[in-house]
C-alpha cells in the first residue's frame, strides 16, 4: 500500500463509547477513516449517534475502547496529555463563562502546552497570541472580557485559542450551533481560510448539511452500521445520504443536496414562466403539497410577467388572479387537482 505522506490522522477499526463500571458500551461498529493536512472535514450523522463521542475520543478526552488512532503514524496511546495537546486542539459545545477574563487571556490559554510550569508568557508566546487574534480578526476585542462578547465573537475567540495552541488538527463540535446566519457564514469562512492558508486540518461536526456539502473537502458520514468517507459529491452520488435519517418522512434530494419532508402529494400542477419568480413559486407549490408537472394542462399557473403583475391560476372554472404568492397558496390549499 502506498503511504500517504499528507495523511495526518487515521482511524483504524476504532471503537468508541462509554465505560460505566465494568461494562463497555460501544456505540458504533469499528470505524475507519483518515484526514490529510489542510483538509476541512465535516462529521455528519443523526443526533445521538456518537459524533461528539468520536470527537472527544480523537482529542484524548475519552478512552478508545479498541482499534487505533494514529497521529502522523504514531498511536494516540503513546502520547502524553501535553504532547497530544500540541497535536490536536478542541472546541466543544460548552460555553465558557468566566468573569474578568479578557479575550487575550482566553487566547493565551492556548499556550498552555508550550509554556513552563509557571505558565509564564514569553515574547514568542505573546507574538503567537497576537497573530492568532489577528487571524480571527478579533484584534479590536483583545482587551474585552469574554462575558461581554456576542456568541459569534466568542466562537472566534475560541478558534483563536486553538490557533494559539499551534496544533496541526483542530476538532470542533458543532462550531456554528448557536449562531445566526451571518455568524455561521463568518465561522465557516474562517475555518475555510485556516485550512487553505494555514494548512490546518479541521474536523467539525455539524447538522447544517448544505453548508457541509458546499464547504468541506471531505465528509465522514456516520451511519448506524458504518462510517463512509469521501468528497461530499462522492457520497451524494452514492446515495448514502438517503440512509442518514431512518425515517420515511424525510427525503434527500440528490439534485440540490437538500432535505425535504415527504408529503402525500395533492396533485400535479404546471407552471408557465421563467426566472426567480418561477423558482420561488415552485418552492411554494411544493410546500403546499403539489408536484410541478411537465405538461401543460388545466389547472396551471402563469407567473407574473411584464404585461401582467399578478399570478394567474387557470382552472376549469376560469382564471383567478392573485397579487401575492401567499394568496395563491391559500386558495390552492385544500384542493386536489389532476391525476395524482
Amino acid at each position, binding site marked *: 500500500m502506498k503511504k500517504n505522506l499528507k495523511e495526518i490522522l487515521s482511524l483504524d477499526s476504532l471503537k468508541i463509547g462509554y465505560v460505566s463500571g465494568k461494562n463497555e458500551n460501544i456505540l458504533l461498529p469499528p470505524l475507519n477513516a483518515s484526514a490529510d493536512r489542510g483538509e476541512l472535514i465535516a462529521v455528519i450523522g443523526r443526533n445521538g449517534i456518537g459524533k461528539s463521542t468520536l470527537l472527544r475520543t480523537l482529542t484524548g478526552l475519552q478512552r478508545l475502547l479498541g482499534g487505533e488512532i494514529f497521529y502522523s503514524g504514531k498511536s494516540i496511546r503513546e502520547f502524553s496529555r501535553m504532547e497530544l495537546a500540541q497535536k490536536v486542539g478542541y472546541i466543544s459545545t460548552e460555553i465558557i463563562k468566566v468573569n474578568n477574563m479578557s479575550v487575550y487571556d482566553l487566547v493565551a490559554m492556548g499556550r498552555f502546552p508550550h509554556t513552563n510550569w509557571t505558565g*509564564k508568557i514569553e515574547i514568542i508566546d*505573546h507574538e503567537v497570541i497576537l497573530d492568532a487574534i489577528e487571524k480571527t480578526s478579533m484584534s479590536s476585542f483583545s482587551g474585552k472580557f469574554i462575558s461581554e462578547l456576542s456568541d459569534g465573537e466568542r466562537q472566534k475567540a475560541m478558534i483563536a485559542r486553538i490557533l494559539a495552541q499551534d496544533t496541526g488538527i483542530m476538532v470542533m463540535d458543532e462550531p456554528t450551533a448557536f449562531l445566526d446566519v451571518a455568524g455561521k457564514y463568518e465561522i465557516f469562512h474562517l475555518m475555510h481560510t485556516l485550512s487553505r492558508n494555514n494548512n490546518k486540518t479541521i474536523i467539525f461536526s455539524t447538522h447544517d448539511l448544505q453548508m457541509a456539502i458546499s464547504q468541506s473537502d471531505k465528509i465522514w458520514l456516520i451511519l448506524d452500521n458504518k462510517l463512509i468517507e469521501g468528497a461530499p459529491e462522492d457520497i451524494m452520488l452514492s446515495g448514502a445520504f438517503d440512509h442518514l435519517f431512518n425515517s420515511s418522512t424525510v427525503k434527500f434530494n440528490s439534485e440540490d443536496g437538500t432535505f425535504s419532508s415527504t408529503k402525500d402529494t395533492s396533485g400535479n400542477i404546471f407552471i408557465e414562466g421563467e426566472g426567480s419568480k418561477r423558482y420561488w413559486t415552485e418552492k411554494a407549490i411544493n410546500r403546499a403539497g403539489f408536484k410541478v408537472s411537465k405538461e401543460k394542462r388545466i389547472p396551471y399557473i402563469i407567473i407574473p410577467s411584464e404585461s401582467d403583475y399578478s399570478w394567474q391560476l387557470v382552472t376549469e372554472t376560469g382564471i383567478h388572479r392573485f397579487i401575492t404568492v401567499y394568496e395563491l397558496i391559500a386558495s390552492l390549499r385544500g384542493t386536489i387537482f389532476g391525476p395524482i
Partner: protein
Amino acid sequence: MKTVKQNELSVDPDSGRKVRLIFSGLLLLVVIFLILDIFLGSVSIKPVDVIRAIFTNSHGDFETIILKFRLPKAITALTVGVALSLSGLQMQTVFRNPMAGPDVLGISSGASLGVAFVILGFSSNITPESLNGLGNWILVTASWVGAGAVMLLIMIISSRVKDIMTILILGIMLSAGISAVVTIMQYFSNETMLKAYVIWTMGSLGNLTVSQLNVLLISVSAGIILSLFSSKMLNALLLGENYAGSIGLNVKFARAVIFASTSIMAGSVTAFCGPIGFIGIAVPHIVRILFKTSDHKVLIPGTILMGGVVMLFSDIVSQLPGSESVLPVNAVTSLIGIPVVIWVILRNRKYTGSF
C-alpha cells in the same frame, strides 16, 4: 516579580503598573494592620512600651501581654486569613462555583468532625490544653482528613449536579448532617471530653499554644507553596475539565494537588481556631474586583495579601480598642463577608456565569 512581567506582555501596557501599584498598597496595609494589631488591644499600652517590649529583653506585664499574647495572636490572624482566603479561591475555581468556600460547602464541618473524633472519641486525657507536639499533629491530621473527605464528596456531587445553588443546598445539608453526628458523639462522651470540645468550638485566634502555632504555620506554608505551584493548573481549570484536558492538563493530578492544599489550609485553621466564617468566600471576590483579572498568577498573591489584611482588620475590630470587652472574631468576619456574598449572588443573577 514574575506576575508583573506577565502583565507587561498583555494587551494593556498600563495593567502591569496598575497591578504593581495594588500589590504595593496591599503589602503596606498588611504591615500597617499587623503593627496596629500589636499596638491596640483591651489594655492600652503606650507605643514606646510596645517597642521596648519587642526589642528589649525585660520581663514586665507589658512584655507578657505583647510577646505571649498579642504577637502570636496577630501572626495567627494573618495566617488564618491567608489560609482561609486561598482555600476559598481554589475551591471557587475547582468547583467553578462563586459561592464555594470552606465554611459554605461543609469543608469546615468536615474538619470539625475530624477534631470531634480525636477529642470526643479517644480518651478524656486529650484536651486542647494538654495537646502538645505529636498530639497537635494528630488533631490537625484528623482535621485534614475530615476536610478532604467532604471535599471529595462535594466533588462527586458536582460532577453529577451542575446547578450551583443545588450544590450549595447539599453543602448545607452535609453540614447539618455532620453536626448531628457530632451531637450524638457529644451525648455519649463524658464531662471532661465534652467541656474540652465545647471550648474548642467557640474558636478563637488567641488560644493557641506556641507549639500549636508552629504546627499551623508549617501546615499553612505547605498549603501556600502547593497553591503557588498550582497557578497554571488553576488557570486551565477555569475553562472546565474538558477544555483543561484538551490544552494538556492532567486533570486528576491537578485536582489532587489542589484538594490537598485546600484541605491542609482549611483543616489546619479549623483544628486550632474553630470555624471562622465568610472570609474564604468573600476575599477572593474582593481580589477579583480589585485586579479585574481571572489570572491566578495575580489572584493567588493578591488573595494572600488581601486575606491577611481582612483578617487582621477583623481582629483589630473584635478587640474594640480602648474598651474592656472583646467581640467574637467570627461575628466581625461575618459582617464583612456577608455583604460581599450578597453582592455576588445579585450580580450572578444577571450574568448567570460561574464568576
